């Protein structure tokens, strides 16, 4: 009986683990308008400015090769794989793909 009781309790405890949920990763596409140590600001198609937090774990890629934050320049196109940080009410960047096409602003720099 003890064995049965323990088995039941364990079953009840772990049943909650059987459910699946899905992530809500977001792709933000735009042109960099400002970069600081902790954030990058991009402007999307609608002209809306979006500030995204840069984390220690944020990875940077250019033509699928890892690069450093130094490649993140004003005027470059980026696609940011981000998660909404509910606490900060801001996007947090997980990965940033940096474009190879330089805009006029970036070319001037």
């Amino acid at each position, binding site marked *: 009986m003890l064995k049965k009781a323990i088995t039941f309790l364990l079953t009840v405890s772990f049943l909650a683990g059987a459910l699946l949920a899905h992530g809500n990763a977001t792709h933000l596409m735009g042109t960099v308008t400002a970069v600081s140590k902790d954030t990058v600001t991009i402007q*999307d198609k609608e002209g809306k400015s979006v500030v995204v937090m840069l984390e220690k774990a944020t990875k940077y890629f250019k033509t699928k090769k890892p690069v450093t934050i130094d490649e993140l320049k004003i005027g470059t196109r980026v696609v940011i794989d981000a998660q909404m940080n509910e606490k900060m009410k801001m996007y947090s960047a997980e990965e940033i793909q940096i474009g190879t096409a330089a805009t006029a602003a970036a070319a001037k720099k």
Partner: protein
Amino acid sequence: MSEIAQFGSVQASYNSKRMKYATPFLVVTFATLAVTAVYIVRRGFSAREEPNAAETFLARQLRHIAVPRRARQMANPVSASPEVLADAMAHFADHCAICHGNDGSGNAPIGKGLYPKPPDMRQRDTQNLSDGELYYIIHNGVRFTGMPAFGPNNAGEDEDSWKLVRFIRHLPEMTDEEVARMKDMNPKSPADLQEEDEIQRFLEGESEPSGETQKHHH
């Protein structure tokens, strides 16, 4: 007193003693069940939360006990080589990364929503498991978690799982370049491929920014 009456008296005494011990046991059991039920009802069945420390500890101990000693002591019959690693990397990207992430961190769309969440396999808790234990888990899966049994349903050993063990040992040394390479090996739906193409064209300057796009719609 007849023998039957004597037997009846002994039986009654035995039953009385049994009841004496059984009652507190039943009370404790039902109280525990009630507390567990209230805990589950209040907490709900959401998979968003993290298992508490006690649950994690208990689950790991049970998993450890559940792996037969003989299996824990098995040595990896597959030797480490660049070819084995490349093969396992492709296999991992195709079958495992959806939950474990290409880097084994567990930071993946499905993995993040699982309960319990997949462990960060680069860390000690996974790396300290023996090769045989890792193989056993991949081959047989883990009940009440999102980990399915990947091995074929026969007694023979599957080489693919042993190769994956080699890859898991490599996870703490993974480079960003390797992770990026694995992205191309991840399974993709037609919508994913279209999105990837749009992103590529955008990054190369062929199209205008299209604003924010949700990767997943559920």
